[in-house]
């Protein structure tokens, strides 16, 4: 355990971004306690000790660099290019956190300039960007936006001196080993292959026709709820797979099927096994799952 007296210094920089990760972070319930553990040299919204202009001079380093947004080497912050900023601070820092899908894989803003923009260490699934090959030093916290609790987990682990194990895409296994499907309240409908029929219903599964990527997406949204209370699937919105390197895909509210057969099946399951299960499960009409749960409204 490192001494609690020493506070790691932290700098939060932004690339091509909507600031969604910054605002998501502000929702962290233990934000004040977390900020107590760091010396925040620069953050775009929170109190900090340096101005952006001072930060852009690259005079000193920091222990932890948090980067939000896609990496565009030519973009400038206070007159210094991101290439220089990331080069300097990532070189000095012991840990680099890519906060959100843009910083992890390029995300939405790779789509706007695919030849120029990337994540810090990946462009989609391909190792690319200024920190490519630095899996482990760069912790990818993908998600659009990043879940505040995921950021809290990574930063607290760093503050406590605990190593963070990551997968091949640099994402912490503790957070991304699960599928977004885990803990979904609609799982029973998935098991028995009962479709939601139409949006705006709490009954039914969104995987068959409505584009839900829960069983295909590494994320713990239904284990650690958003804003402490909910998730997309809980309010009848399909998971759009925003933690994956191929986000944003196209036709997000529809499931791609070939002759009614889903083109993609849950991760790690063979299509043959999945279709066998489906055919059998669909054969049983489970009355309870065909009915509305609450009829009084």
């Amino acid at each position, binding site marked *: 355990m490192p001494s609690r007296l020493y506070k790691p210094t932290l700098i939060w920089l932004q690339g091509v971004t909507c*600031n969604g990760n910054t605002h998501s972070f502000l929702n962290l319930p233990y934000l004040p306690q977390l900020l107590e553990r760091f010396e925040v040299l620069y953050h*775009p919204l929170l109190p900090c000790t340096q101005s952006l202009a001072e930060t852009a001079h690259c005079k000193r380093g920091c222990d932890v660099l948090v980067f939000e947004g896609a990496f565009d080497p030519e973009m400038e912050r206070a007159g210094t290019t991101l290439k220089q900023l990331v080069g300097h601070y990532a070189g000095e820092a012991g840990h680099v956190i890519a906060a959100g899908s843009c910083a992890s894989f390029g995300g939405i803003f790779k789509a*706007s300039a695919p030849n120029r923009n990337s994540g810090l260490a990946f462009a989609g699934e391909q190792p690319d960007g200024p920190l490519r090959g630095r899996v482990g030093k760069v912790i990818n916290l993908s998600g659009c936006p990043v879940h505040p609790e995921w950021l809290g987990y990574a930063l607290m682990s760093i503050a406590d001196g605990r190593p963070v194990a990551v997968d091949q895409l640099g994402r912490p296994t503790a957070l991304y080993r699960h599928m977004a499907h885990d803990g979904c309240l609609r799982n029973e409908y998935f098991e028995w292959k009962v479709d939601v029929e139409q949006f*705006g*219903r709490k009954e039914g599964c969104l995987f068959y026709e409505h584009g839900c990527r829960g069983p295909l997406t590494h994320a713990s949204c239904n284990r650690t709820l958003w804003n402490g209370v909910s998730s997309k699937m809980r*309010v009848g919105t399909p998971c759009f797979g925003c933690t994956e390197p191929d986000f944003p895909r196209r036709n997000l*509210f529809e499931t791609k099927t070939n002759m009614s057969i889903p083109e993609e099946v849950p991760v790690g399951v063979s299509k043959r096994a999945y279709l066998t299960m489906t055919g059998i499960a669909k054969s049983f009409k489970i009355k309870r799952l065909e009915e509305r749960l609450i009829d009084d*409204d």
Partner: protein
Amino acid sequence: MMTKALIEHIEGEASLYFDTRGDKVTWAEIAFPHFRGMERMLEGRKATDALVLTPRVCGICGHAHLMATVRAIEAAYAEAGHPVELTRKAQSLRELTLVLEMIQNHFKWLYLVILPELEKLGVEGLAPAPLKGAFAAAQATKILALFAGQWPHSSYMIPGGVTCDPTHLERIQAAGLLDELIAFFEKETAGIDLDTLLTFASCREFNPLQSDLGRLEKGLIAAGMHKKGMAYDRFVVLGEHGFTVRARLKHTRPMKADASQVATEAAVCRDETSYARNVRYGKHFYEVGPLARAISADNALIKNMHRRYKDSVYTRVMARVYETALLLQRARKLLEHLELSEPSYIPPVPLERITAAGEGIVEAPRGPLIHRMRLERGIVADYSIITPTQWNLGSSVMSDPAPAQKAMVGAADIAEATFIFRSFDVCSVCTTH
């Protein structure tokens, strides 16, 4: 002489270029240096994909973008002869979550921006506590998420309604959380109970308040902000909701407002490439936002302020904080009257059948947000977004300044001018989407 100031701790950054004589600001130009190309990204995609992409225009008001998109798609449906039916329940839920996003925005602006920045101007005794803003905002977005799934970046509004199917359980949870948030607002922000605050009719009533709002009000006067930062004293409100009155106002005199009169032009900045655009209604610049909304809705207190202090920084800032109170009350009312027995969603005809143009207008935290789209068989052929900050924070020529420019000219020094600039609640990511 010309001085560049980099404005940070807003949504993104802006550069201000000041001409000064002595310390006094004689002219200012505004540049927004970052551009992301959101509109182009949507072309060729199915219109419903925009419900996922446009919230990513902005991390602080993405929900307003979601609503503008869904309204634009629904307008295209109507234009194509297939009007979309919305239940009262769907409309109330949409308004409720929009209101909650505005509430979180206003809390953050007050605590993370305005109070710390006012202290930098030398005003004492403000005791700014930025994390109060984060706490209150997180509470507001928690209520929002009960219905919309998450914040930021929900996509729960879809053509024909909303995806959620809440029960009274969520409604009761939401009401409990809202009561807590109102209690926080009463104790920390207002220093008085909400209902009493909402009966205020004159600025004098703030005098006894021992609270952040009381200190802010006195601080604004101490900094002379009741005599500074006037713009054109012309306002526009375009978004139609249960809490807005659509109007164009000269001083406080209302006239009809027609969105087809709204057009944009390139911003002018001689010293830097700016990706911003200016917005005009007809030939003129107008101010938008909470102050505009309060005047068009005939709010007694804000009109009293306006009578005394015109469209000064004082009035602009107080109107935004006061709007928080109005919106908390609105959220409470919407929750109380939430009719859960209706369907959340009425399926419209398939999107592939829609070849038409549509416009969606929403009152976002900072004013009217306009999305215009043209669909060809459900695919986006053309998309354009006009954001509230483009109305307020245009950059034009000296003979015809945009509202924020006009407000900054005459400031005692650059520090004061940048505070005036922030009084408009700057959002750079929206300005250059």
